[in-house]
């Protein structure tokens, strides 16, 4: 096996469970694949092509995505909203509307991002916050921000949203994360909404390693 193996359409079929006809059809539609050709004109697929086909297949079967959307998602284009959701889920899907799109972007960033109301309650948070503190995002809505902060830093954290509101930079606060160290540097901006104000807070990890997407101590799936 060389470091860059290639596979025939038959081999790819046995690896993916897709028929050669389906593989060629997916290849034509949406430019899903661009196999090279051997000297005899046979299609040659790479290991990346195999991985790509399996991911597309998973997305069509597990999420019911159309081929077009599955191809986009498998390519790493912005996550789409057609996910399996319960009827009870009242959380807007990540891709719904421009706001949802920006929220999806916020979910990708390795920063803690929270929106607080004037009483310091969380209006919204990105997924890194939920993962850092070990809760679901929807469970965070309405929670007081100071409840996520180590007791000795709560008075300092409360200044973020208490009047008089002001922009704060480098506001270092210890967050109660699931790992031993949770020191974050928050930049905070008051944002007018209607008659009131929200405070947008972006926290950078000061622990050196950065926010882990798959923390080792929690059993990554």
């Amino acid at each position, binding site marked *: *096996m060389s*470091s860059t*193996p290639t596979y025939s359409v038959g*081999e790819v079929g*046995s*690896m*993916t*469970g897709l028929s050669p006809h389906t593989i060629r059809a997916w290849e034509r539609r949406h430019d899903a694949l661009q196999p090279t050709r051997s000297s005899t004109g046979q299609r040659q697929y790479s*290991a*990346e092509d*195999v*991985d790509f086909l*399996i*991911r597309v*297949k*998973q997305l069509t*079967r*597990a*999420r*019911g995505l159309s081929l077009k959307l599955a191809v986009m998602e498998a390519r790493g284009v912005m*996550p789409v909203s057609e*996910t*399996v*959701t*319960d009827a009870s*889920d009242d*959380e807007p899907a*990540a891709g719904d509307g421009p706001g949802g799109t920006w929220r999806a972007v916020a*979910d990708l960033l390795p920063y803690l991002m929270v929106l607080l109301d004037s009483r310091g309650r969380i209006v919204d948070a990105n*997924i890194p916050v*939920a*993962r850092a503190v*070990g*809760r*679901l*995002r929807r469970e965070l809505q309405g929670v007081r921000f100071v409840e996520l902060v180590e007791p000795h830093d709560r008075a300092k954290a409360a200044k973020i949203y208490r009047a008089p509101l002001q922009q704060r930079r480098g506001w270092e606060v210890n967050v109660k994360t699931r790992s031993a160290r949770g020191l974050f540097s928050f930049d905070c901006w008051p944002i007018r909404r209607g008659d009131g104000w929200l405070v947008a807070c972006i926290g950078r990890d000061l622990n050196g390693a950065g926010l*882990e*997407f*798959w923390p*080792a101590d*929690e*059993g*990554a*799936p």
Partner: protein
Amino acid sequence: MGRAVTRTGGVRVRDFVHILRKGDKGQAAAFVQEVFAQTGSRVALFADLIHPAQYEIGDLWYRGEIGIADEHRATAIVEEITSALPPTPAQGRLPRGRCILAAVGAEQHVVGLRLVAAALEDDGWTVTMLGGRTPGAELVEMVRKRRPKFVGLSAAYLPRSDSIKTTIGELKRLRVRVLVGGPAFNRNLSLWTKVGADGHGADVRVAVALARIAAA
């Protein structure tokens, strides 16, 4: 809940994910049995239902839509149901030789590796399963003694790839093929080349096909 398999042979993974999210073990077992009866193959069941469902559950956790307890419950259900399935040897299979499967270093997640072990056994391999947290040096020593045709390594999370890269380097010096798999490699599709592996089994069906190629 309707049929588990469509008339065209497609497996309704989405319905299975819904059942796993509910945590209904009885319904999940019935669903798996229906797909198993239709396909008659553990490889097909694992590749077409279990793997995509597990991937989706992991992704739901990653997106913050389910908690870690929900993810663990789904994994426990899958593990219990799949471990009870009988072998389904491939027709006309040949004895293919020995292989060793392990998760090295701190890695403890081996559900996927167990599915790969079952799939390889059905394809005629004699599998030595070392499980999780296998010390790299001891794996190398066992390979030196048993001379398998290939080694399969799994990783769910690789904060640093140096360790597995070192282990793979030592295995390659023994002229043994090394295949890798697991979520860490599925999330970063070029990682298998960076750590020096010979192939990446994105699911059990690919792993079985690559194992055949490795043995050829």
